[in-house]
């Protein structure tokens, strides 16, 4: 590829900060957004901690008519989209509508909206179901609403691959740019912190039942006992490097490689697919493992899954062969929003030359990982690998290269 696809805009909505500056400030200081659930009465459930977004008032950012027809995750996504486009310096109204597209991931759709309408249906009757239910809850809603809000008529897409989907959406957005679309808005936001969403998440049997926010989500630690869910994610703006450089945009980095695989069926005895996904991403980027500067781990917080991920990383990079981190220990796992937020974190890490830390974790020796804990680590970062896995066996990997080469080209 002679004209790489680059990220030029970030819109972050996370439990540790609304907007890039607050998020990155909290992340580099190791501030956690995990705490007791306040959104509903969680006392009766076996898991009671989450990464909630506090202080988000949708009406401050969006027109009133949108509020009754949108779930919280859509409101967050629309605001993140506004921020990402502003960050990229793109005013959609100035561009031909068919030159801009939207591809997002979703894991759960507008689940809280759906809960409210199911309650209306079963407690009052079918006539009490909202006219907006037909689209407010479904998985395509964020792509649809983002395209409408920003007048984007180009290729659209929606992928659902649980937590891996955030990377699959970014890869599909990149595919559309390679096929000729000038600007793609991509990423994902999920938010299902409502009783019905919580009960459905509990069924994964992967939620931590700890009540101590500092001990609940401890990937790669002997004490690992599940994860803490959160809400939020990130929306990214992507375009061709030549276009970004020509208009003098800040280039965060390049989406240089991608790989996606699926694990063999349980009990069939085959090799898990994560290492294969990593190798596919590195091969596409034409980067040997020793040139990868940091890995943002999926970090499931379940011993078997942590072992599988550590095995994949050590298989490709060798034991203690590459710095590994999981800033999602501060936000909780955001489902499809997690990987786009990790991409944003990795791009910001490369910009500053600082690997954010994995909080609260004491790495277990048996994983043989160089996990960045306790403090952020200063390092010159030219590339970063982001990993994401979805429930059932989805594995995705994205290799980012720093925006620095593009900035050098621009200076010349």
């Amino acid at each position, binding site marked *: 590829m002679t004209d790489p696809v680059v990220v030029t805009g970030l819109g972050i909505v996370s439990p540790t900060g609304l907007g890039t500056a607050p998020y990155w400030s909290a992340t580099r200081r190791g501030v956690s957004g995990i705490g007791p659930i306040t959104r509903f009465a969680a006392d009766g459930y076996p898991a009671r901690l989450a990464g909630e977004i506090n202080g988000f008032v949708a009406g401050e950012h969006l027109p009133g008519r949108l509020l009754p*027809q949108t779930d919280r995750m859509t409101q967050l996504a629309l605001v993140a989209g506004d921020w990402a486009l502003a960050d990229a310096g793109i005013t959609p109204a100035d561009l031909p509508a*068919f030159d801009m597209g939207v591809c997002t991931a979703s*894991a*759960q*759709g507008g689940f809280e909206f*759906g*809960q409210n*309408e*199911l*309650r209306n*249906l*079963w*407690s009052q*009757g*079918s*006539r009490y*179901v*909202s*006219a907006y*239910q*037909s*689209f407010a809850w*479904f*998985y*395509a*809603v964020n792509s*649809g609403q983002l*395209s*409408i809000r920003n*007048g984007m*008529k*180009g*290729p*659209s897409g929606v*992928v*659902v*691959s*649980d937590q891996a989907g955030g990377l*699959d959406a970014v890869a*599909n957005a990149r595919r559309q740019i390679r096929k000729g679309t000038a600007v793609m808005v991509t990423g994902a936001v999920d938010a299902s912190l409502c009783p*019905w*969403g919580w*009960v*459905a*998440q509990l*069924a994964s049997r992967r939620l931590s039942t700890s009540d101590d926010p500092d001990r609940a989500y401890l990937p790669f630690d002997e004490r690992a006992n599940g994860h803490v869910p959160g809400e939020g994610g990130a929306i990214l703006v992507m375009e061709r490097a030549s276009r970004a450089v020509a208009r003098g945009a800040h280039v965060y980095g390049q989406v240089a490689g991608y790989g*996606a*695989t*699926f*694990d*063999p*069926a*349980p009990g*069939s005895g*085959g090799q898990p697919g994560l290492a294969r996904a990593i190798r596919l991403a590195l091969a596409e980027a034409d980067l040997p493992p020793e040139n990868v500067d940091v890995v943002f781990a999926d970090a499931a917080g379940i011993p078997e899954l942590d072992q599988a991920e550590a095995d994949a990383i050590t298989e490709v990079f060798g034991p203690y062969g590459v710095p590994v981190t999981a800033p999602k220990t501060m936000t909780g796992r955001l489902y499809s929003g997690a990987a786009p937020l990790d991409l944003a974190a990795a791009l910001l890490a490369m910009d500053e030359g600082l690997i954010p830390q994995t909080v609260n974790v004491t790495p277990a020796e048996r994983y043989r990982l160089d996990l960045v804990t306790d403090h952020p680590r200063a390092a010159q970062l030219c590339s970063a690998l982001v990993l994401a896995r*979805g*429930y*059932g*066996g*989805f594995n995705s990997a994205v290799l980012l290269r720093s925006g620095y080469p593009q900035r050098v080209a621009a200076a010349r």
Partner: protein
Amino acid sequence: MTERRVVITGIEVLAPGGAGTKDFWSLLTDGRTATRTITFFDPAPFRSQVAAEIDFDPEQHGLTPQEVRRMDRAAQFAVVAARGAVADSGLVFDNVHEHRTGVAIGSAVGATMSLDQEYRVVSDGGRLHEVDHTYAVPHLYDYLVPSSFAAEVAWAVGAQGPATVISTGCTSGIDSVGYAVELIREGSADVMVAGATDAPISPITMACFDAIKATSPRREQPETASRPFDATRNGFVLGEGTAVFVLEEMESARRRGAHVYAEIAGYATRSNAFHMTGLRPDGKEMAEAIRTALGEARLNPDDIDYINAHGSGTKQNDRHETAAFKDSLGEHAYRIPVSSIKSMVGHSLGAIGAIEIAACALAIEHNVVPPTANLHHPDPECDLDYVPLTAREHRTDAVLTVGSGFGGFQSAMVLTGPGRRP
């Protein structure tokens, strides 16, 4: 490197009126309809009381009791169809194939039927706000996140390449196949098991379409309720079903001597960026998708022998796409047979796009164009050749199929007969 092209080598359809590709094609070519008064639940409280249901016994189709318990109905459809499509393709998977075989399953509303039923229980009939987790089924997470459909299909066929669910509302079926085609073309996979599934006939779906009067309120003669392009049409009729395909890189399919139904020669999707449910009457964005798909297929409007319309049977849709055909194909739009199989099998949301691709592939295979049933009173605003009532023998080498959905998505795909394109 030479261009990688993608062909369909296996098909399985589960559609209302008969579970299986053969029954499906008989229904279409006979012009019979499978819409009926809802039997899955008491439809009395609803404005719309007709749907196209499948009489489906999962165990008869080879699913084990635990698979049945674990999977939502839509996932059951997909797994049965995926196995059928692989059998139809004659493809034998070995270790190499597994890593190079991916899955893309479209679904608009995922496990909505199971979610509706489970919510009713854990909330005790909508009474509890803090719903009771002790009454939840153990597989509720699989219903929460419908990527479980892709996982089930991958397990069923042994695929270990890229797997995902594509969920772009009512264009999911075209978009999942289009996604799969792009993966094979770019070299990310050699084989894709792709298609779409939806089983939305449940109270919450009926209620939400009632609320916006999108579905037909016609109750008398339910078999005539779905009337695309007819002047008396008054909404779509909800359906369910699935179609799954085996898609292969053309040269490797040829090398193994596979039967090729059709090549997928062009695909595009665009958004109207206008309204989540409304359509502008001019159809400009669908027209743009059609032009782009034709361009990718390197075909001209006069190469198209048949258009499989979205033809949902709502007032606004049928006008919208008629305008889109005229805009994109010019005068030739008046000379191409156009039909909507939703008149017979209903509108199964995300699944129907894949079911319609199957109809297109079979039209190419048999040189027969399926009809639009229930079209007795042409709407003056819909003035194309909609093949009313009776299937037509017609040389069919190149086919256009389109979809339009909530969220503003407009998709188009072009299929050609094997060897049709140089």
